[in-house]
């Protein structure tokens, strides 16, 4: 099985050439590695690579194909581009257009809605303010567009990842 993975601005191709128990011979772009990878705890991996012992924690992102990988002091935001799109199909959501929907990664309370349906918004414009854990966070539009739908009212309690505002991008 070969998959494409994105990290920062780089898109890499990963191919498993051989697997013997926990030892994998893999090709990442043009380089070959022999990696001894053990899952030691939930989301925690121990890797031995040419004698070096490396620990990786996998923190899942908003969707199953996104990770924040913690490798000691280093953090990578990693996205797996799965041609089978298994997760996306399974989830039933329109993740391709995810950016259209402004949502909060955590449950919270709607403090203020700064736009109404039909309003034009600019990229970076604050659309809604959500309060959670004694802190208010501003959510901004990621492109120029028009507010298509506002799903919540001020004072509402919201679930994590629930759509709050939908914005239709300008052509």
């Amino acid at each position, binding site marked *: 099985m070969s998959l494409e993975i994105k990290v920062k601005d780089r898109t890499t191709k990963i191919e498993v050439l051989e697997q013997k128990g926990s030892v994998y011979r893999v090709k990442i772009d043009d380089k070959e590695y022999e990696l001894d990878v053990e899952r030691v705890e939930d989301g925690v*991996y121990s890797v031995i690579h040419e004698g070096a012992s490396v620990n990786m924690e996998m*923190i899942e992102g908003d969707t199953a194909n996104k990770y924040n990988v913690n490798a000691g002091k280093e953090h990578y935001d990693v996205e797996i581009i799965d041609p089978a799109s298994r997760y996306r199909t399974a989830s039933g959501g329109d993740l391709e257009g995810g950016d259209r929907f402004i949502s909060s*990664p*955590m449950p919270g309370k709607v403090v203020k809605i700064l736009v109404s349906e039909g309003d034009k918004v600019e990229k970076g414009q604050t659309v809604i303010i959500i309060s959670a854990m004694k802190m208010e966070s501003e959510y901004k539009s990621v492109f120029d567009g028009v507010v298509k739908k506002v799903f919540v009212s001020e004072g509402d309690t919201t679930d994590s990842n629930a759509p709050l505002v939908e914005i239709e991008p300008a052509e």
Partner: protein
Amino acid sequence: MIKKILVANRGEIAVRVMRSCKELGISSVAVYSEIDRKAMHVRYADEAYCVGPAPSNESYLNAEKILEVAKKANVDAIHPGYGFLSENADFARKVAEAGIIFIGPSPEAILTMGDKLTARQKMIENGVSVVPGTKDPVRDEDDLVKTVEEIGYPVMLKASAGGGGKGMRLVRNRDELISSFRMAKSEASSSFGDDAVYVEKYIESPHHIEFQVLADTHGNTIHLFERECSVQRRHQKVVEETPSPLMTPELREEMGKQAVAAAKSVDYVGAGTVEFLVDNDRNFYFLEMNTRLQVEHPITERVTGKDLVKAQILIADGKPLPYKQEELSQNGHAIECRIYAEDHQNNFMPSPGLVTHITEPLGLGIRTDGYVYEGYEIPYHYDPMISKLIVWAPTRDEAIQRMKRALYEYKITGVKTSIPFLTKIMETKDFYEGKYDTHFIEKNIDTLLEDTGCDDACEDIALFVAYLDYTDKMKKRSNETASDADCVKSSGWKDFARRKNVLRF
């Protein structure tokens, strides 16, 4: 004698108070909100009672309900922890009226210290230094020159009606004074319709240094030295240490005396903290007094060897302090890092959620005070602080090395935490040289947020592990879909939680 204590709090501080109760053979009673049924303080307590829904004002701030539980459970005393009702004079009074001991100072002391202007006045009367300035507006330019010369440059001119930086002017010398004053007045007038301006000493490179005090009901008041709390983000403390790198024995003696004087001025009883601003020339000014236990009290415990919660309980029980000022000393160096569930790379956004895995740092010189555990879902209703990591070593250098080691060992997955940010702080030159003030985070924010890339191999390995975890997960999920619902449930918390999300989206 106190035999049963209700802890009117949650999180790490509730558990911490109960630990000392247990060591003293005192029963502890927890109160909890509906969402906190599985919280650690409920599990730790000898008794536990629900006091209302998740929002604080309906549970942990519900004084009536908490008092009702206290009476029902027949407790001898109530410990308020920090936050919530801990500095609520009204609550303290109601507790006393119900014939229960409030573990803290008198309602009068809370009230006096709770009002900034009253407290300032009280300090001036009792010979405690405050930030020099006029709290009344200055109208006349000659008066202004005289006043400023008394205070000394630099000064800050501030609009009385002001806020948000409008009508504020920093004045460094006599030449700038009159023109700045006129500009401040004009700006104040146009912004607020009121041109009143007052003067305050401008503290450059301010250090936030506080003193721990303890006072019993027998007239003994002592201090347990200082805590340096200048590593702050938006007035939120992030790292604390003791001794302060800025401190000298003379300054310590002088500040300690004033801290004790501040406490005595309100007949303080119990544990409290006197906060000061200190400039680079070691001038210090009273800021405020916190009439409760502080988050950062463990570093004081570590260098003095004293259990402050036990001291609070002893004092509340009418006992005299078991140690005198001259018997106390600072042994070695202690640092505390506050671990928040937050994403520093995303504007420090809180990151509540399900904790899938924790490894606590262990070994020599490490103390952790936490309350989250594997499988616990951090609620979004309360403070995002999930634990405190305290290290001790004979020297400051060794303590920093140990803190780095402990942060390296501390693994929490499921939620994002401030651990990487704290690690960066430990590595920042200004910090490890001990040359920092409250501008530290602001000044170093670029380095602190910078992503230290590792070599290509390390990045490639990260990618491969992500690949493995993902394909494994996908395999599992397709199997789950094929089997019945009960099976999905049995495949563990995380999958269950994710399924919920998926269904919600």
